[in-house]
């Protein structure tokens, strides 16, 4: 298999995986907040927060670098070519807009209800990363579509 074919196969896999990861990420956060509202803060929540932080960093790294860290430099370069970089820039733009919109929403919510600083960061990061992942996945899938 040539480097071009390998990069193509891995790019397709990445385009399929990113939206799935984004949805799993959102569902995980939603379940965390629902549980927290019902039962209040517990020790187990700190473990969940740590897991969320590790997952957030891993997703950010995957989004920023393109993933496939153990493949050859040539394959990684092909997976990060001009189109990918343009798609990533657009994904970051959408992620930034999502984060800012959520921040504005939280600002208004905080007028009526106290919002914990850590929870606010949690919400903003989750929305920013998920929005960027979804947009990147969509753009990559469109780019890979034939015809």
């Amino acid at each position, binding site marked *: 298999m040539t480097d071009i074919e390998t990069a*193509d196969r891995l*790019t397709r896999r990445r385009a399929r995986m990113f939206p799935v990861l984004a949805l799993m990420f959102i569902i995980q956060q939603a379940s965390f907040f629902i549980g927290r509202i019902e039962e209040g803060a517990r020790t187990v929540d700190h473990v969940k927060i740590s897991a969320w932080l590790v997952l957030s960093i891993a997703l950010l790294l995957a989004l920023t670098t393109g993933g496939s860290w153990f493949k050859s430099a040539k394959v990684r370069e092909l997976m990060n070519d*001009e*189109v990918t970089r343009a798609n990533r820039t657009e994904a970051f733009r959408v992620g930034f807009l999502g984060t800012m919109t959520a921040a504005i929403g939280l600002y208004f919510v905080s007028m009526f209800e106290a919002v914990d600083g850590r929870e606010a960061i949690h919400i903003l990061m989750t929305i920013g990363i998920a929005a960027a992942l979804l947009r990147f996945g969509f753009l990559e899938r469109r*780019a890979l*579509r034939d015809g």
Partner: protein
Amino acid sequence: MAERLGNRLHELRTERGLTQAGLAEMVEVSRKTINTVENGIFVPSTLLALKIARALGLPVEEIFSLED
């Protein structure tokens, strides 16, 4: 009026019997890049346009043109 970058990449590539992957190999980019340029989804940089032109042995203006 919005201007678009038209291209004859698909036509010129198939005339030469090249697949997208074959041309991608010559230009040293991914097949996805050739696909998006061909379909007009992506406007290539000057560098990429020149590399495609060099691979096809044509001046860049024979491949790309401005469309209204």
